[in-house]
């Protein structure tokens, strides 16, 4: 090391500094996408504090920095999972089948906002929102249509649903029952991550305590009934979209994870009974190398926490498996075709970061809902990375890069500092209630905006290489009659079903809510008889109250 140190100093003084002094550099300061300083050069000197076996190790071995599986993409590529959903269940079903026919390997359902907030399509608050940002689901009938001709034992399905996750999961199980598929064979994920809704995404319903209880009900139910289901997708994605930097994304996501584990432990569950089914969801942003390091740091950090803090014994409890979506916030409305390139770079980072599944955004999403054509290019981007680039043929190929390893290590350290701070505030739920997390994110978002406006941070087509705006072609339009039709269909279902049964189901749900019984069972019974999501959530609203955001 001493020789190296000497060699480095000589190089720096005789070569680097001289050249810089004579010719300067492009910028006064080089920084990552998250404002961390970047040196001109990284070398083995930056890795002195890193122990290969303790901190990096081989793939499939603790702390899983290089990947959770021993073979990674050599045995199986990541799941290409495009988030889709709009309009009616029938239209979305057609889009799903189109995507499966074109080589997609998993489904990802986007629900409309009324569904995500537990309102039926005919609720006053739903006006204008039905079928807009996803598919409208009121009752089991919509769910049956959504998965028509899609064998649920053959696909894995991810559902972006949080506050009313129990209801949608129950509907999915009920559809499987009708298809004759056994519960053990169901695989997929519900997002079910309420904490980030308070922080970043805004589709909460209930206050934190009952929300956490709904989540642990799901943990408990699935540990007994749905062994292959990912019970939660702890999401940094939206935290990043809300404006956080990479470290905050990492730290706040892991802090959310810690809170969920604590909640499950507090109802007496054994850590190894649920931890293997926890999954994560990260954002793929523009700073390619920082993002790769972030994914690797996340795996190491979670593994260390599960082992050291929670005493997890099963290897699987320590493995951070994650989905990635490319950054919506990085898409520009200006020169939208440039987004195809952005998405490719972000997706490549996710793959080199060892993601288990990936959604690539369509280039037209800053303008409206994606067209079929744009969605196809997004999917093909993944195919090109998988089949042409060669990056999937060896495991974690960027490992050993002085820069990547040093940054991975730094990101772990910086995230830990945040975790300590959150711990001092009494954990993540308390830190959110106090507005700490929201303020940190808002500050980063504002600083980023200022950096873009000053030109310090370049966004091609927005603050450099600008052109007069050009109209781009089609944007997907939602049928204006959809809301009316959906409401009418719901009215028919309401009049056709047995109203005594509906009343009884709602009473059972209320009782379970009051008596702290696992809500999954009465909810499943209710959805089988076409009780709607709005009706179920209304009962829960009455028992649990509603969360009102008061932080600014």
């Amino acid at each position, binding site marked *: 090391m001493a020789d190296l140190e000497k060699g480095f100093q000589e190089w720096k003084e005789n070569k680097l500094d001289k050249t810089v002094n004579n010719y300067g550099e492009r910028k006064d300061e080089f920084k990552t996408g998250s404002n961390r300083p970047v040196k001109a050069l990284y070398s083995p000197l930056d890795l002195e504090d890193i122990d290969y076996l303790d901190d990096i190790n081989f793939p499939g071995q603790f702390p899983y920095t290089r990947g959770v599986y021993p073979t990674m993409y050599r045995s199986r590529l990541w799941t290409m999972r495009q988030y889709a959903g709009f309009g009616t269940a029938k239209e979305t079903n057609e889009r799903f089948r189109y995507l499966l026919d074109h080589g997609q390997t998993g489904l990802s359902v986007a629900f409309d906002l009324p569904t995500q907030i537990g309102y039926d399509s005919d609720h006053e608050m739903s006006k204008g929102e039905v079928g807009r940002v996803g598919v409208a689901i009121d009752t089991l009938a919509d769910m049956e249509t959504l998965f028509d001709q899609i064998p649920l034992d053959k696909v894995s399905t991810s559902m972006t649903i949080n506050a009313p996750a129990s209801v949608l999961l129950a509907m999915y199980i009920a559809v499987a029952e009708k298809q004759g598929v056994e519960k053990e064979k169901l695989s997929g994920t519900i997002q079910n991550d309420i904490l980030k809704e308070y922080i970043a995404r805004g589709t909460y319903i209930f206050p934190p305590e009952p929300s956490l209880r709904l989540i642990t009900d799901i943990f408990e139910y699935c540990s007994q009934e749905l062994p292959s289901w990912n019970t939660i997708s702890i999401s940094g994605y939206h935290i990043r979209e809300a404006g956080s930097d990479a470290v905050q994304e990492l730290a706040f996501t892991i802090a959310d994870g810690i809170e969920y584990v604590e909640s499950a432990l507090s109802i007496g569950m054994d850590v190894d009974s649920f931890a293997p089914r926890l999954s994560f969801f990260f954002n793929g942003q523009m700073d390619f190398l920082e993002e790769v390091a972030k994914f690797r740091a996340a795996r190491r950090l979670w593994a260390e926490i599960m082992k050291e803090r929670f005493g997890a014994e099963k290897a699987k409890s320590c493995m951070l498996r994650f989905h990635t979506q490319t950054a919506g916030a990085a898409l520009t409305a200006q020169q939208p075709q440039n987004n195809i390139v952005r998405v490719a770079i972000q997706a490549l980072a996710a793959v080199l970061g060892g993601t288990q599944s990936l959604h690539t955004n369509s280039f037209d999403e800053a303008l409206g809902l994606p067209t079929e054509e744009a969605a196809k290019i997004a999917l093909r981007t993944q195919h090109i990375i998988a089949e042409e680039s060669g990056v999937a043929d060896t495991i974690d190929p960027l490992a050993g890069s002085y820069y990547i390893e040093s940054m991975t290590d730094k990101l772990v350290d910086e995230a830990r500092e945040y975790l300590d701070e959150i711990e001092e505030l009494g954990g993540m739920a308390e830190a959110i209630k*106090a*507005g700490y997390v929201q303020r940190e994110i808002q500050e980063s978002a504002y600083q980023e905006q200022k950096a873009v406006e000053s030109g310090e941070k370049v966004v091609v087509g927005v603050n450099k290489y600008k052109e007069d705006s050009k109209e781009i072609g089609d944007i997907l339009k939602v049928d204006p009659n959809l809301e009316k039709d959906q409401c009418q269909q719901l009215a028919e279902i309401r009049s056709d079903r047995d109203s005594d049964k509906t009343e009884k189901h709602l009473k059972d749900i209320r009782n379970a809510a009051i008596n702290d019984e696992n809500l999954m069972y009465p909810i499943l019974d209710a959805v089988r008889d076409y009780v709607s999501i709005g009706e179920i959530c209304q009962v829960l609203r009455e028992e649990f109250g509603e969360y*009102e*955001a*008061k932080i*600014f």
Partner: protein
Amino acid sequence: MKIDVDKILAGDEKTVAKAISLVENSRGEAFDLLRELYLKTNLAYLLGVTGPPGGGKSTLVEKIVSRWVDSGEKVAVIAIDPSSEFSGGALLGDRIRMGKIATHPDVFIRSMATRGYLGGLNPAIFDTVLVLSAAGYERIVIETVGVGQNEIDIVSLADTTLVVTVPEAGDEIQSFKAGLMEAGDLFVLNKSDHATAHKMELILKQMIDLARSDDSGWKIPLIKTIATEEDGIGDLIEEIAAHKNYLEVSNLELDNKKKVMKNHLIHLLEEGLRNKYIEPLLKDKDFDHSVDEVIERKKDPYTQVSEWLSDFGEGV
């Protein structure tokens, strides 16, 4: 802008809102209106609410207001946030915290910025109270964040002053302006289910005893609440009513009104003097020159000011 006084007296929201803007932005024009309103109006009962940030003041205000309107009162809330010293702008974030009462027909919420008034309290705040009183709001809550001099000035307008604290605010309590402790007629310890609440309660009780050792007969209560769960709100409403009643029977109400009016007269006088004399002076290019002269010790500040004052005298 012409404001229809009858519409204000009839409580027309839009006219009331416009009148407040006039009071805030066009002082000179507003005086005609205020003159007319003052003689026709009894000032509403005014509750001041202050305390460190993060104490749940707005939630508490929401609960108080909601109880009052339920019992048939018309209530207005003036939510005051600080203006930025640098830009003069302000983020008025309290409306977001008022929840469901914001849509109640008998509730009027107005957000105001302090506008960094030279010489203390912005007289527009008192005048806003006057407009709202004229519009038939029988109770007005002035809410302000913080524990500094500005907040003391604002709550000094109130008949009853409520100081809201939370267990976590330990360090901040120690740094409370003594004036705030003296101004408080009621203290609330919110989030009283918190682990350190008991300790905080003891500290507060001690501070309350020290702060006001008068023989007025009003024993300052410390009310424990958990605003988010409605805990203790009933007690708080009763204590506020008790203080209001106490003011009435002890004739202190009148004393208080005299004190408030004396201050308001001083503020108006200061405002008038500033607009008439000081502002033109500041805009004058000679002003900077005079500063330079003082800096360069060509002149001392005392002589300079007495020269200005004698110029003013000639102007009168």
